[in-house]
């Protein structure tokens, strides 16, 4: 997969995907927690499918359990894509 994935690209994809799952677009900030956004484990499993399709990055169950905020998710995806 491309090795030039930027944090901005990932943020956009993550925000778009999360917005489709329910939370208002304006609430999806880096420091927003998934709990605040009412994003649950199944939502994150769905998000990980989008991320895999777009960036070729596979998030495992352990990965998903470890991330609590939008920013943490973005950082993890960027680090795995690099």
């Amino acid at each position, binding site marked *: 997969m491309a090795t030039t994935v930027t944090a901005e690209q990932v943020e956009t994809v993550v925000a778009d995907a999360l917005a489709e799952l329910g939370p208002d677009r304006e609430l999806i900030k880096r420091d927003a927690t998934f709990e605040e956004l009412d994003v649950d484990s*199944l939502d994150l*499993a*769905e998000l990980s*499918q989008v991320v895999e399709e777009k960036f070729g990055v596979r998030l495992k169950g352990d990965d998903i359990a470890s991330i609590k905020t939008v920013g943490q998710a973005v950082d993890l995806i960027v680090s795995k894509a690099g």
Partner: protein
Amino acid sequence: MATRETCALVTGGSRGIGAAIARALAADGWPVAVNFRSGEAAAPAVVDEIVAAGGTAVPVAGDVSAPGAAEQLLAEAERQLAPIGALVNNAGVNADGLALQLEDDDWNRVIETNLSAAFRLTRQAVRGMIRRRHGRVVNIASVVGTTLTNPGQANYAASKAGLVAMTKAIAVEVARRGVTVNAVAPGFIATEMTAELTTGTLEAVPARRAGRPEEVAASVRFLASDEAAYITGATLVVDGGLSA
């Protein structure tokens, strides 16, 4: 309707209960991908029967227990027909023998085909279903291992009990996405596999007869329908009262 825009995949669909399920789903409007083991005769006759009756069906060859089979079978069904809207995990094997004499291979092969392959297919199929907010998974279990048991089937009973437990676990994970996961547990059904059953065996069945594959298929057709949207994590027993 979602069921017209997606297809159904029936594993082990060339004979017996699987073929009856393929026919029933096709009669209900589902385009059906009929999986059969590559080692068997060419395309299963049930595909031609469905097409001749005005339905849509295609053969999808492959052993469900082979590495990578889940991805390959689902991709092939989707390539030929449509996204998977219903998955029927029907493929199953048995390798009977008293536990004292069961080889590791007999144990592993039955667990692998009946349980692990069903898990991998379900995991893969549900990925698309949760995105589409609609889906049906029906696992063909058995009364063996769930409501009663036979000597000589430790592997088979464990695999089918596992299938029922897996059905419930995945059902609760995906219920809020409009995806249902259920099991059907047949009793004695008249197929090639049970041709050697004696009338003495059937005396234990309150209905005093073996079930027909079509009677199992009708339950699957219902669970795959939109009408069954609120049924999930359930096991529907189709056994003529055997386990009542």
